[in-house]
């Protein structure tokens, strides 16, 4: 499932999956602008069939945060 997450982020941000890690964020990925954040959250919601609260969206600063939120939604990401 982790692979699925990274593939999705890589596709939306248009960066190779190998360049992504837990600390990847708008600071480290130039294409991660605000619009791509919405796009990412939208696709995460449909891919993992869940919905993030507005707090979760605001608190999401990097990939580790996304994983944390997914885990809180009961979505297990095994490597």
């Amino acid at each position, binding site marked *: 499932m982790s692979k699925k997450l990274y593939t999705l982020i890589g596709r939306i941000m248009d960066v190779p999956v190998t360049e992504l890690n837990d600390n990847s964020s708008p600071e480290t990925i130039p294409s991660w602008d*605000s*619009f791509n954040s*919405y*796009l990412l*959250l939208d696709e995460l919601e449909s891919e993992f069939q869940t919905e993030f609260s507005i707090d979760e969206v605001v608190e999401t600063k990097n990939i580790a945060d996304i994983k944390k939120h997914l885990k809180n939604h009961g979505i297990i990401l095994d490597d």
Partner: protein
Amino acid sequence: MSNGKLSYFMNKSKSLKDRNFDKTIKIALLSSYTINGFYETLKVKMSEHQIGGNIYVGAYNQYNQEILKDDSELYNFKPNLTFLMIDTRTILGEIFYSPYSISAEERKKNIEKKFLELKNLINIFLNKSNSKLIITNLHVPTYSPYGLYETKTEYGFHSMISDFNKRLEVEFMKNDSVYIFNFNQFVSKYGNDNIFNIKQFLFGDIKISLDYIPFLADEFLNYILASLGLSKRCIVLDLDNTLWGGVVGEDGFDGIQLGSNPQGNAYVEFQKHLLALNQRGILLAINSKNNLEDALKVIDDHPNMILRRNNFSCLKINWSDKVSNMKEISQELNFGLDNFVFFDDDPVNREFMKSSLPQVHTVNLSKDPSQYSIILQNLKEFDTLKITKEDSERNQMYLEQQNRKELQNNVVDLDDFLKQLELKVSLKLANEFTIPRISQLTMKTNQFNLTTKRYQEEDIEKLAKDKDFFVGCAQVVDKFGDNGITSVYIINKQNKKEWIIDTFLLSCRVMGREIEKAILSHIISDAKNNDVDKIYANYIPTQKNKPIENFLSNCGFKHENDSWVIIPKDDFKLPDCIKLIEE
């Protein structure tokens, strides 16, 4: 309804190479809200239609400034088509949230004022630009602070927005430079809960959720196609299982499905929608493998038939292949192949059309006839920016043209297409599993049937046990799926040196694919291995089996007395396109 995710179009647009397109157009997008992703989606969708060109995206919610300023980037860009996307919240401002903080009279004045502002803006644009302008009307929310009392309220929240839309429509009704896109209906179609995503709105003033931007882009694309004159003008229809259920050549006039039951009603429903398009000037034509007489009898005399002969501008009801027929229809109606939409229930015919004539829009028809009318209504290919009186008279004009032309039969080399089908013919014996179907085929098959001998199940059982007879059948599979047992052959081997083909038939479902030759080649090689000197066959003409009157002579049989004969020791070639499997 399916469409790609927005990110698909975002990525795809990056990989679009600079190409020279036949058609180009300059599009401007102005909006009162965030439309990121729209540019990329439209670009990709245009390229899929071989349309190139530039798209200008105005700055976020700056449409007033862009239109008012003489030398704005918008005017310097010189668009051909300009889309102005406005939304209810922006136009109404605080009234959107508090419509009942003011009186009905004040609401009316407010709408009057908002409408005049927009009308003024549009007129300024029209004075400064040669572009056509497409404006989205306002979505009427389902919510009201008055709840169920809303419809009891004079000039209420919903009425005021509807009034705004109505004024917009009436004001520009006669103006060919301004079109109103019914955004309110667009929201109805897909649902407000889908189109509007509160989080996306709160975060980024996104008023059309990201998932639905591709759908709105489709709607806008229709204006682009129409303005470039790329609308389709003629629907070409198959008959059996397309305009009616069943096969008229097999099931007969009384056996086809047309009205009277749910399946039959599906075809009537489809025909009614086709008729409406015909009445507005879309031509209809027929491209069907059938006996002309059988088909015309249904078209002329069937009580539930909606479309009659004079609704069709061109009839190609014959045994030629569908691609040749399509080319002839194009010539006779005298417009290019890219003006045609093709409906056929058979995926093989559709694939043949798509691969041979990609210019023709071949519709991906559902297997389920109940969906035909829905699929037709969802086609946007007929959209034009103008419908005239002449359009509705066009049908008659082509009808006269048609009467001057004679029916012609063309033969086209189908080898390559047949090879692509990956045909497999499995030969099977008559046994408890196959006998019911063998009997059924002998009872039902009319067109490709050399002797038209009818055999009940018991008859087949008897023949299968009889040492002097051989009963075989064939299952046909191609890359699109299994056609099932679709051929039967019965050989009279009483005379060890001279076999007689008692029965040889093929279901019309698999006609025109060389299946018959593959089976014949097997019979002939079997005879050769058994030192048979001659194989006799008969063609017994009926009203229905005319399509195969030359089959035996085409396969090398020689006429001898009242019969046809072939010598097994002469080689008979198995068609290249078919893999024969003996089970």
